[in-house]
């Protein structure tokens, strides 16, 4: 997904000379093309995320459109106050890029796991929150985010490398997508657990259920209309995210559904339990499995709840 992001950024920087790209000393083997093509608009500010976001705000106050890049945990948590006070309060045109959200830096350890970013970004006024699930969404989300004027956060994960997009898809902030039609239950996914969600849907179909899969790359604004439309006719709604079940997609979706009068349906949010940090060591699939984000485990839980 990082490759898709960089490809789109190159196009956008070509198109808009006000864009300045800042990195907090990350991007080896990824950002070189941006640095080479736009040396005057690319700056490594060093390992100083608070300063990077503060500086981004100063640049934005002077009319620049600023992209500030780091690993998702460092991009969001270290400079959170600068994001709140400098970027959001002043409603500045600064885009926070968090690469490797969720367990995408798996065996780096808890410091590099990002399971809270959506929650803490979602709560900020003016902030748009994007969590693309695969290549097309990553490119389109990057484009939409950059062309939007104002604060935005995008979480980039590891792309499943599958083209789930359909010909009629047109991306917009606040828009979700029906990746698979179905009527019995709705699986709602955000980010790059979309592949796990679709594998889960395959298994559920084998058990005789008609499964709708929604991909929600835009978490704020959120496509409540699409969710409610598909949820109304279903027996149950299940959200799947590589994030804490507190404050992420599960919370956003449940709020939207209950506001619509969600009675008599089953609902469960799958994600990371917020009670503790996982100290498990392993690769991404291994870690996701430990928290139940694995198709067979998800199917068992869903079938039990129906």
């Amino acid at each position, binding site marked *: 997904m990082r490759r898709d992001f960089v490809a789109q950024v190159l196009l956008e920087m070509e198109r808009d000379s006000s864009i*300045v790209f800042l990195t907090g000393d990350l991007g080896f083997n990824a950002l070189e093309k941006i640095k080479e093509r736009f040396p005057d608009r690319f*700056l490594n*500010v*060093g390992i*100083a995320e*608070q*300063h990077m*976001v*503060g*500086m*981004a*705000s*100063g*640049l*934005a*106050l*002077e*009319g*620049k459109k600023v992209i500030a890049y780091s690993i998702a945990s460092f991009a969001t948590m270290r400079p959170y*106050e*600068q994001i709140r*006070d*400098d970027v959001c*309060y*002043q409603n500045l045109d600064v885009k926070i890029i968090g690469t490797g959200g969720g367990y995408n830096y798996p065996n780096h350890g808890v410091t590099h796991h990002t399971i809270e970013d959506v929650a803490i970004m979602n709560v900020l006024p003016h902030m748009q929150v994007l969590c693309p699930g695969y290549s097309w969404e990553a490119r389109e989300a990057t484009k939409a985010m950059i062309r939007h004027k104002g604060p935005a956060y995008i979480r980039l994960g590891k792309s499943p490398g599958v083209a789930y997009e359909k010909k009629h898809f047109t991306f917009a902030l606040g828009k979700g997508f029906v990746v698979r039609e179905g009527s019995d239950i709705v699986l709602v996914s955000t980010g790059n657990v979309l592949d796990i969600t679709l594998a889960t849907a395959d298994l559920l179909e084998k058990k005789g259920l008609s499964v709708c899969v929604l991909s929600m790359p835009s978490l704020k604004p959120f496509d409540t209309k699409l969710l409610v439309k598909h949820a109304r006719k279903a027996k149950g709604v299940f959200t799947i995210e590589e994030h804490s079940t507190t404050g992420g997609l599960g919370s956003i979706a449940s709020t939207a559904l209950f506001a619509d009068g969600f009675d008599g349906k089953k609902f469960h949010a799958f994600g990371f339990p917020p009670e503790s940090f996982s100290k498990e060591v392993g690769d991404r699939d291994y870690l996701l499995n430990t928290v139940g984000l694995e198709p067979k485990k998800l199917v068992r839980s869903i079938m039990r709840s129906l």
Partner: protein
Amino acid sequence: MTRTRATTQKIGENIRQLVVEMSHRSHSGETGSSLSISDLLAVLYFKTLRVDPKKPNDPKRDRFILSKGHGAAALYAVLALRGFFPQKLLLGHRVNGGVFHGHPSRGAAPGIEASTGSLGHGLSIGVGMAYAIKGTKSKVYVLVGDGECNEGSIWEAILSAGALRLPNIVAIVDENKFQGFGAAKEYSPFDMVKQWSSFGWETLRVDGHDVRAIEKAFDTAAKAKKPFVVFANTIAGKGVSSIEDTLGAHYYVPDKHAVTAMKKI
């Protein structure tokens, strides 16, 4: 509240009068920290900064950021005295339905360049501004507190400006020698001039209440070709003799007698 066109020294006094009146009216503290920067702001806005109150967003202007946002009352006072907005707006300082918070909020009134309040933010914002307008004749001035320099992000910004050799940023350190709960030297016992200097900044010390010396220092800073910092030796609670040079100056809420006494100066 009266408007004056007198000397810079007198403007410093006027700022102090307005600060005391505002603090009294709103029953709010942070008075001493506003008073300590009164002469620095008088020189900045009446001698140094190339700003035009009629064109507050002129791209050619110099920029000023009050990173130590708790000195906001003095900023509001000097902006009013300089004509950015009518003095009667100061009546809306920290009162219900008012205009001004206890820390600056961009957009509340013309002339406020950036919202500040949480310490350690303003210098990075200033570095970003300076980087954006590098090559123009405009300079970016950022006023930080000595206590504020406890913040790690300040040192990130000092390092960055030094590494970028920014020729258009000027920091002013208000050395009033007190922070929230003690003497600044207790928490930062080292030589700050040497510290900033080792990060690539040109440095100068000045008496922060000697307006002629301040003007001269700012003139030097304006001509600098690298990041420049002015360390201003100031007095917390300047102008209110009962609180001068005390920790309590920061929390002082003036009574009506203090307001009357300030008016007699």
